[in-house]
């Protein structure tokens, strides 16, 4: 069917505001990043000096940068494992209907509604070595040997950053709750009649049935890890000695250091952007095949 020119025009009229905003901020922004990445210049954007691929070479050869990407992946892997295990378990268990499940549900959701900056700040106070409440509690109940330098010992700092993910299972729980409403309870009843115990039911029936939620959580967590900033910036500043640095904190540290080479920042940004966009493509493909398989338009 041929579409009239007028209809094309009407369509574009509706998307114009969106395209204008995107053109000014995002598309020009991408162009700006790529162009600037070939120059050596400061945040005053004066005295730009063309350096070719030099900035990219420096970024790729910087072990801190590679390490920050690895950290992104490690932190998101941990968040995924926690979301898919603890998040799934808690949502299923709450749906069984125990006493006070409404209150408990609220409790587990609330942190996800708060600024991550706030949570990171509270954790940093809580985990402080000398005055932090966690170590004080451990001293108080006579478990002194468990008290740790939670944030200044590299392994412990890793653990501390990851521990916040446990506090943020609200979002995975939301996906699981939504997915659980689509499960046909007949399947579960049949399993009960066949004599399946609780553990079997969880592992062999419920868990596989929730695969849509798993997929959403895995992809969105992975994508989110390249956006995440506050948790590490406010908890460890990427420290000790860069051990917990992720790509956002890495890039930001160069934005704010005096006399920084913005071309270098843009080269790092371009690489991170490319990775993030690739994950986004995977995500789109993953959901497109699903829609087709389900036979839904």
């Amino acid at each position, binding site marked *: 069917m041929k*579409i009239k020119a007028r*209809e*094309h025009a*009407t*369509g574009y009229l509706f*998307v114009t*505001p*969106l395209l204008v*905003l*995107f053109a*000014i901020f*995002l598309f*020009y*922004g991408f162009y*700006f990043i790529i162009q*600037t990445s070939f120059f050596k210049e400061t*945040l005053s954007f004066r005295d730009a000096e063309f350096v070719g691929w030099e900035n990219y070479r420096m970024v790729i050869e910087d072990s801190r940068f590679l390490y920050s990407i690895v950290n992104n992946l490690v932190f998101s892997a941990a968040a995924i494992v926690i979301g898919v295990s603890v998040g799934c378990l*808690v949502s299923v268990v709450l749906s*069984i*209907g*125990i006493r006070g499940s409404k209150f*408990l549900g*609220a409790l587990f959701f*609330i942190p996800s*509604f*708060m*600024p*991550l*900056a*706030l949570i990171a*700040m509270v954790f940093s*106070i809580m985990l402080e070595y000398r005055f932090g*409440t966690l170590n004080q509690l451990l001293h108080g109940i006579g478990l002194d040997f468990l008290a740790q330098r939670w944030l200044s010992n590299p392994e412990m700092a890793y653990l501390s950053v990851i521990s916040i993910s446990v506090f943020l299972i609200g*979002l995975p729980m939301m*996906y699981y709750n939504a*997915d659980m409403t*689509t*499960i046909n*309870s007949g399947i*579960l009843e049949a399993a009960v009649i066949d004599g399946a115990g*609780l553990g079997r039911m969880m592992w062999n029936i419920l868990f596989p049935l929730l695969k*849509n939620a798993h997929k*959403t959580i895995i992809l969105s967590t992975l*994508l989110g890890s390249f*956006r995440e*900033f*506050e948790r590490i910036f*406010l908890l460890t500043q990427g420290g000790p000695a860069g051990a917990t640095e992720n790509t*956002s904190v890495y890039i*930001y540290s160069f*934005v704010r250091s005096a006399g920084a080479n913005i071309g270098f*920042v*843009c080269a790092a*940004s371009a690489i*991170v952007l490319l990775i*993030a966009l690739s994950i986004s*493509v995977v*995500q789109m493909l993953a959901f497109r095949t*699903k829609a087709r398989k*389900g036979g839904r338009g």
Partner: protein
Amino acid sequence: MNISLVTRRQKRIITVFLYAFALVWLFPFYTAIRNSLKVNGFKNYVDLFMGDLNGISLLGTFRNSAFIALGSTVILLAVGSLAAFAFSKLRFFAKEALYATVLLCLAVPGVVILIPFYYILKNVGLYNTLWSVILSEAVLTLPFAVLMMRNYYDNLPPELMESASIDGATKLQMFNRIYLPLSTPALINLGVLSIMWSFQDFLLPLMFLTDKSVLTATVAVNTLKGLFGFSPADYGKFNAALVVLGMPGVIIFLFARKYITSGITSGAVKD
């Protein structure tokens, strides 16, 4: 699920286990509240709202946060619903390719786009104004808004268009009088989400708002941390500020949880 999957004994074990987990969970809350009452007790809270904190008024920062949240939400709803309607119900050149491009932008990390935004905002004279954050937040949230609203419009019947066009309505009238009112639930979901995300935002205001008069609540606490000395009295006040900062989250949860849940899940899990 209302079938008896578990025996009473299993239920009891699960309950005990879950409450133990919740107790550990409450520990950060306990930390913040306990520290906020140090030295001056509840007076820490009163002081927060009565006076300036090194030239920063906490109420003022909440006003800034609210203005930014409302501003970016209005832009998001207007621009997002218009575009989503076109992507769902109109036919035009390269529509699906354009839609895919918009969705791709879901992935843009804030920190990556910080420098170009800084450059653009500085050049148009919006740096250090609330509009800088309003616009950048709206731009970064728009892909999600388009995704979510398009999913919603896709589920509205196209037949309404046909009957309206027989009555001689233009596309804009169809949008305005028929589809926009029908999408009110989705608009509310999106609006609540957008307000919540705006209140949570840290990086954009941190970078674009450096004047004390335009600080947002989330960033103000970070600034206060630097400004306060390490005296125990300041420490109490600082922790009280943290508790106050958590309040919008609790309030949003109490009043708007279902909008957030259905918004996030309708945007992500397409079933």
